[in-house]
C-alpha cells in the first residue's frame, strides 16, 4: 500500500478548506487494508466532493477516496435492481442505463455524486413528494466496520444500522456497495409545464395542483420583498413517452469542461448587482403565465452540471448553500418570516429553489420531513453571511424545522440538537457500530456526532 498523499481538500462550497492525508483505494482489498492497518488514525470515505461544507473533510486522519471503487456488480433488467460499489456515480448510472430504459429512483441536483454519498446524505430530489428519499429505494448495503468486518444492512437486516447509515454522513462505517432499484422510463426526455407564480400562496396552490406529477420544483426569487415574497417559476415534469425527443439545451451539447467555472474564478463576479439581474431575468424569462415543453433529462434534472466546476465562480472565499425545511403551516408564518429576513438583510442569495416535500421521513440524521424546503446560495462575504444564518437557524428551530447537513458548513451544536432531536438515538447506534470512533469528519466533530478516538 502506498503512503498517503498530502492534499488540500474542500467541499463544493469551498469553505472550509483543510489539509488532509489522502489515500485512493484501487480495490476492496486495498480499502480494507487502509482501514484496518491504519494504526489509530481516524478515517473518512470521500466520494465526488459535492457535499457543500465539511461533511467529506477530515483533518488529522486519512481521507479515503472512493472514486475507483466504482464497479457494477450485478444488474437485473427484469426488475431494475442494480448492485454496485459505493464509488459508482449517478453520472455513470444515467449514461449507461438511460439508453436501456432505466433512470435512478431519486436524483439530487447534480449527477456527479457517488451512490455511497447519495446514501450517506440520504439525498432527495424533485420527486420527494411521490418517491421519498434515496434510502427508500435501497437494500443490501455492505458496510465496512473499523475491525475490517463487513456487515449487510437494510430495512430488514440490521435495520438500526441501516437507519443510522442513511443520512449518517459516512460516520457509521464505510459503505462498500448497495443495491438500488432503478425506475423504468420510456425515453430520455421529460414533459415539463412551467407556471409563473407571483407569491408564496400561489406557489403552494400551484404545487398542490401538481401533486400527481412525479417531479416538481420551483425557482424562487430571493430578492422579492413584501407581497412578492415567494415569487418564482414553478416547474412540474414527468418522464416523456417512448419516441419523445427532448431538447438538450445549448450548454449540455458542448463537450464537458469547455465551459468551466475555472475560467471565471473571481471574488467579484457574483455580487449583489449580478445576482439581482440574474433573478430578474429568470423571473421574466417565463413570459407566459403557463407553458409546456419537452426537454432532455439533463437540463431538467441537472441544469448546473453543464458548467464544469461552477462553484469556482464564487471565487476563492467560496459560498454557502442554506437549505432548510419547515413543517406545513396553513399561514406559512415561519416561511414568510425567514424569506423576509433574507431579502431585508442585504446579504442576498444568488440562486434559490423551493419545493414541497411529501409525507415520507426516514428519521435519524436524514434531512427530508414533511413541509416546505428552500435552498439558497450565498456568496461568502464574511461575518455578515454567518450572522444571517445564525438568525435564520433560530427561526427554523422555532418553526420545528431543520437545515440539511450535507449543505452545511457552520451550524452550531445547540441548534443542531434542536433540529435533529433523534440525534441521541442515532449516536447510540453509531457508537455501537464504531466503538473506537474511527470514522470521523469535520462535520461530525463540529456537531458532536463522534467522540474522541480511543486507543
Amino acid at each position, binding site marked *: 500500500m502506498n503512503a498517503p*498523499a498530502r492534499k488540500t481538500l474542500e467541499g463544493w462550497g469551498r469553505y472550509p478548506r483543510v489539509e488532509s492525508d489522502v489515500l485512493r483505494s484501487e480495490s476492496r482489498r486495498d480499502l480494507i487494508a487502509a482501514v484496518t492497518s491504519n494504526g489509530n488514525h481516524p478515517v473518512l470515505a470521500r466520494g465526488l466532493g459535492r457535499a457543500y461544507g465539511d461533511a467529506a473533510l477530515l483533518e488529522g486522519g486519512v481521507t479515503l477516496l472512493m472514486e475507483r471503487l466504482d464497479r457494477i456488480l450485478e444488474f437485473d433488467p427484469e426488475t431494475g435492481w442494480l448492485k454496485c460499489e459505493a464509488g459508482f456515480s449517478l453520472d455513470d448510472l444515467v449514461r449507461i442505463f438511460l439508453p436501456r430504459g432505466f433512470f435512478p429512483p431519486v436524483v439530487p441536483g447534480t449527477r456527479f455524486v457517488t451512490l455511497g454519498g447519495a446514501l450517506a446524505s440520504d439525498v432527495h430530489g424533485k420527486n420527494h413528494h411521490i418517491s421519498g428519499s434515496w434510502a427508500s429505494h435501497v437494500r443490501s448495503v455492505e458496510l465496512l466496520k473499523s475491525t475490517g468486518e463487513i456487515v449487510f444492512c437494510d430495512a430488514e437486516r440490521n435495520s438500526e444500522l441501516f437507519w443510522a447509515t442513511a443520512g449518517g454522513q459516512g460516520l457509521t462505517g464505510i459503505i462498500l456497495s448497495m443495491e438500488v432499484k432503478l425506475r423504468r422510463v420510456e425515453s430520455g426526455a421529460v414533459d415539463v409545464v412551467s407556471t409563473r407564480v407571483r407569491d408564496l400562496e400561489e406557489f403552494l396552490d400551484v404545487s398542490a395542483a401538481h401533486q400527481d406529477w412525479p417531479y416538481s420544483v420551483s425557482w424562487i426569487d430571493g430578492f422579492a420583498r413584501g407581497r412578492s415574497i415567494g415569487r418564482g417559476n414553478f416547474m412540474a415534469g414527468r418522464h416523456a413517452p417512448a419516441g419523445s425527443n427532448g431538447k438538450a439545451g445549448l450548454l449540455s451539447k458542448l463537450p464537458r469542461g469547455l465551459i468551466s467555472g475555472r475560467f471565471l474564478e473571481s471574488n467579484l463576479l457574483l455580487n449583489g448587482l449580478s445576482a439581482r439581474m440574474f433573478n430578474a431575468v429568470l423571473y421574466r424569462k417565463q413570459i407566459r403565465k403557463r407553458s409546456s415543453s419537452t426537454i432532455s433529462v439533463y437540463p431538467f434534472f441537472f441544469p448546473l452540471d453543464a458548467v464544469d466546476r461552477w462553484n469556482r465562480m464564487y471565487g476563492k472565499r467560496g459560498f454557502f448553500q442554506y437549505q432548510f425545511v419547515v413543517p406545513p403551516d396553513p399561514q406559512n408564518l415561519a416561511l414568510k418570516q425567514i424569506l423576509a429576513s433574507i431579502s431585508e438583510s442585504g446579504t442576498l442569495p444568488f440562486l434559490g429553489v423551493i419545493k414541497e416535500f411529501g409525507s415520507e421521513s426516514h428519521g435519524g440524521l436524514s434531512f427530508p420531513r414533511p413541509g416546505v424546503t428552500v435552498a439558497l446560495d450565498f456568496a461568502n462575504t464574511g461575518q455578515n453571511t454567518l450572522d444571517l444564518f445564525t438568525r435564520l437557524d433560530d427561526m427554523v428551530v422555532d418553526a420545528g424545522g431543520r437545515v440539511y447537513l450535507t449543505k452545511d458548513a457552520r451550524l452550531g451544536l445547540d441548534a443542531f440538537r434542536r433540529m435533529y432531536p433523534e440525534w441521541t438515538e442515532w449516536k447510540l447506534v453509531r457508537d455501537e457500530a464504531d466503538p473506537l470512533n474511527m470514522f470521523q469528519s469535520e462535520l461530525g466533530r463540529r456537531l458532536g456526532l463522534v467522540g474522541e478516538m480511543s486507543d
Partner: protein
Amino acid sequence: MNVLILGATSRIAQAIAAEHATDGDSVLLAARDRDEVKTIASDIQVRHSTRVLIGDFEATDFDSHVGFITDAIEALGSIDTAYVVFGAMGEQAASEKDFSAARTVLDVNFTGAVSISEALAGYMEERGQGVIVGISSVAGDRGRQSNYFYGAAKGGYALYLQGLRGRLARSGVHVMTAKLGFIDTPMTFGLKTKIPIASPESTARALKKAAAKGKNTFYYPWFWRQVMFMIKAIPERMFKKLKV
C-alpha cells in the same frame, strides 16, 4: 476478436478491457486477486454486454505459464491480442537493503513478463497471426539511482520485446512495446509535478489504437519520447551527479 489481459486488476488493465469490450471483443481477465477480477468482470459484462472470462494468473509462477496459455486458448477459442500489463514498482530502499525484495521486482517485471510473452510467442508464431502488447516504462530508458531495479527490469523487458519483434515479424505476428510515462495510478498518486498525468482511460484508448496501427515502440503520453530523448542525451558524468 479475442483479447487476453495479463494483470487485469490495475486501472489501466480495466480500461483496456473496457475499450475492447466496447468493440464487442471477448476478453479474458487474468490476475492473482480472484475476487477483484470477478468484480471487474461483472462490471465490464454489465456495461458492455460482451463475453468476459476470468483466469488465475501468477506472474512469478513461471512453470505455470505455458499451461496457462493453453487453458486461455481453450477458454477463449483463440488469442488474437494479448496485453502484458502486470508490474510491481517495489521500493528502491527496500530492494537495496534486502535482495529478496529486489528479486521480486525483477521476477515480476522482467522474468515473469518474458516467460509469459515467450509462451504467447510460441502459440502466435505457429498460428501465424496475433498481437502482443508489452507494457514497459520510460523508467527503462535510463538507469536512475532512485529506482534502478524497476528501471532495469522494465528496460530489460523492452529489449526482449525488441528482439521478439524481429523474430515474429516474419510470421505475421506483431509486437508492440509501450513505454508509459506518468499515468494516474498508485505510482503517481500524490506526485507533485508540473508534467501532465494521463488518465488510465485515455492510455487504454491510445494503446488499442497504436497496436491496431502496428506501432513498434509507442510512448504515452507522446511527449515522453522527446523527454526521454533529452534525458538520454545528458552525459553520464553529469547524470551520475543528478539526484534523480
